[in-house]
């Protein structure tokens, strides 16, 4: 290899494109796909150094559509698989895509421990408030009263609030955005990627097929943007009628408040770049490991 530095290759959006998606038309997953490609281009990530990891669901198909490395795993287990990538190869950029069922129902335990371990990745929770791929059963975020084939008289438990849960579990970066807020989405992704640790990004995702009522993307009066110089700026193009709330993402108690607030908020709820990263600790241990000693020293007679 030559010792001169190669002129950095400029990656264009098409360098991130792979197979064509098989979602319903109007599905918010398309916008997420586009937004994430944009983010990778913005960050000029070499596709060869990117790994997308997902579970099963409509959202779980995302990795197939990026021309990067990817693991479309099994239902609910994207986080442990991604941790394997991160522990093995700290040089890679790791993204996780998970649905509300995938992350909060079957995958709940890994979410607890992923957040707690705070390993470096961007975790994108595509919340369409429904099980898409299995044809519309209630998910942990389905709105109360919404009729589904598994709860035909209306979903009867109160939905879990994913942002509150992530904060409760001690998340070091907790943000929320929406698939249709393309500018806000992109900036959120950029901020998440810049954060060292487990960046939890909740995405309001449209499912026109099974839960069109979940998110009213045509109006913007029902939500607020959290605004701060250390956060993400409001998206006034796509969310012109949203109120704007100033919120310092280092304030955890306030973050809890905003997480529970009506109208609901998009933006960065909480961020702390100083939390211990599990993978980093382990990698440091390994790197500072003394030189290999005699393997059998201890057991030799």
């Amino acid at each position, binding site marked *: 290899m030559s010792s001169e530095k190669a002129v950095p290759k400029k990656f264009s959006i098409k360098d991130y494109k*792979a*197979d064509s998606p098989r979602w319903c038309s109007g599905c918010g997953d398309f916008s997420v796909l586009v937004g994430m490609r944009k983010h990778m281009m913005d960050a000029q990530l*070499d*596709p*060869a*150094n*990117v*790994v*997308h*990891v997902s579970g099963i669901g409509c959202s779980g*198909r995302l*990795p*197939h559509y*990026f*021309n*990067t*490395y*990817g*693991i*479309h*795993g*099994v239902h609910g*287990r994207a*986080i*442990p*698989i*991604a*941790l*394997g*990538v*991160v*522990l*093995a*190869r700290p*040089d*890679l950029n790791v993204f996780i895509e998970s649905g509300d069922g995938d992350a909060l129902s079957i995958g709940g*335990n*890994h979410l*607890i*421990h992923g957040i707690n371990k705070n390993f470096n990745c961007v975790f994108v929770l595509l919340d369409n408030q429904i099980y898409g791929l299995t044809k519309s059963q209630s998910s942990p975020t389905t709105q109360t009263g919404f009729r589904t084939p598994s709860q035909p008289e209306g979903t009867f438990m109160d939905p879990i609030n994913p942002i509150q849960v992530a904060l409760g579990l001690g998340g070091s970066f907790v943000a929320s955005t929406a698939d249709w807020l393309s500018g806000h989405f992109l900036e959120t992704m950029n901020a998440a990627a810049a954060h060292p640790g487990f960046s939890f990004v909740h995405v309001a995702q449209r499912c026109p097929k099974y839960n069109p009522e979940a998110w009213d993307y045509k109006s913007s009066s029902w939500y607020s943007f959290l605004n701060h110089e250390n956060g993400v700026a409001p998206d006034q193009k796509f969310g012109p009628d949203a109120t704007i709330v100033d919120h310092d993402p280092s304030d955890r108690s306030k973050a809890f408040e905003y997480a529970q607030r009506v109208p609901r908020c998009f933006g960065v709820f909480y961020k702390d770049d100083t939390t211990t990263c599990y993978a980093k600790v*382990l*990698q440091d*241990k*390994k790197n*500072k*490991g*003394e*030189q*290999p*000693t005699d*393997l*059998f020293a201890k*057991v*030799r*007679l």
Partner: protein
Amino acid sequence: MEKKDIRLELLMDAGNGAQSAASMLINEFAKEGKYVFIEPMIPAEISPPKRTPHSMSGAIVRTSNFEISCIGSSSDLMLVEHEILIDRRLNDKEYTKDTIILLDAGDERRNKDGYQAVYNRMDKLGLTYVAFNLPDVCKSIMLQLKGRGKNMVYLGMLTAIFNSNYDKMYHFVKTSYKKLSPEKQDLNCELYKEGYKFAQSEIDVRYSIESKRDDSKKVFMDGNMAISFGAIDSGIKLFAGYPITPASSIMHELAKIFPSYGGIVHQAEDEISAMGTVVGSYFSGVPAMTATSGPGLSLKQEIIGLAMASEIPAIIVNVQRGGPSTGLPTKTEQSDLQACLYGCHGDNTKVILSVADVEDCFYAPHVARYLGEKLRVPVIILSDYATSVSFKVIGEPTQNKLENIDDINDDILERFFLTRFKEEIPMVKNNQSIPGEQGKERRVTGLSTDGDGRVDFSSDAAIDAHNIRNQKMHILKESLQKPEIFGQEEADLLIVGWGSARGVIKETIDKCKENKLSVSGLHFKIVNPLPLGLKELLSKFKRVMTVEVAYGDRYKSAPFARELRNETLVDVESGVCEPSGRPLKPDVIMTKIREVLS
């Protein structure tokens, strides 16, 4: 008594240090040039109440002047702390008419009837026993140690009984209690000395084994330590696991030393997660392993299937314990074979290695890497409780510091009766690049795909993928050598086993030879796939039966028998198939052989 081969047992209440005393003893034995094998007996609870059957803890030590490969059938000497333990232990029937029992009668005043009952039982069984009372000096020193230290008395006694080197052992005891205060160290040494003196003068039992001089380097380890060292030497760089008996000590051992060798130990939140992390790591090009036992294996099945379908190597150690369900966590069994073979839904292709002994444990990770990476399939290493905790003195293995799997030593492959692959292995997905390789970006999935890795639900794609996956395994099948045969290639009876059965089979066949019985043995290390030519091989024997620590009966074949029957259509019987939690015993097999041959 001059002997070639002695088995002794030290049984005490859990927490009283039987295992550490036994391991000091055999360390010394080993240094004297004896061959040793030790199987600890561990209760399933941490410190079950003393003076109950549940608290039985101890060690079985076998020592000899020839290479031994199993723990044997029965003990020559048992040194037992109190009546409840010997009563419990007699149930396992690991005694003969020649067994001598040294029973500490110190508790007799607490339970005269109990002791009497046990004496009666031993009398009835025709066993020789000596009920002894420790000298008062021991008792008063132990008082100073708050009741501890009896194990050192016993160690002293055993030193005398086995004519072992008192000075060296004394020194060993002295240096073994570094963490204690100097006074306590001294008290322990005192107890050791008193025990020695006591047995010298009061106990009229002596054994000796002529030590063989052998200057080659020797190491002393149990199966799980060997797997840990093997993992390091084979170039594995990540271990992800969740604690479970008896697999945990692999993680413990690695946690101590792996970082110095550039490795990472990750304690996951559960077994599913650990398995996922192994897959993520291996996909990224970094060899990774997990270790578990039965219940954990069941949990890992789904992701093992993902690894198989998406062609990601993965190494899974499964240390079998007593089952089913939570079962008997500190007992041995060989009942997970079929869960490994078939546990995951859908058509499964994966490699299953088993380990016969401590040496195999060291080399199994190398072979697992070789096969896993070549075929890009999950590889399961099947060990068992007995192997995992049994210490053995072995010649020091050569270190390989394996990086590229193609550099693996032929000897290692040979050990598992394997020939190096000569041909290119076909893959369902043509592109098998790893992250970082430019222009070869790819996605893997558990969904059906075409050769380009694209999701494809057509019949053609599904059939092609099935064919190629199985073809890979068939290439391995064709690369397998004939498994190890003990004795003639034709005989009245063939006994067959796998994994930890090797030593017992070997020893049994040796005995058959001595007794001029027409019996051979066959042992498998790779249990899936099975080699070609088995039908011909088995057909040369009038009868074939397996010996397994697993259930079988007239209606239901034991697991390995079942596999052989399907593979060969030979009437392979389930010969010895008692999942008793105890390792196979040569004597039990001999009895069965005589029954079959008569």
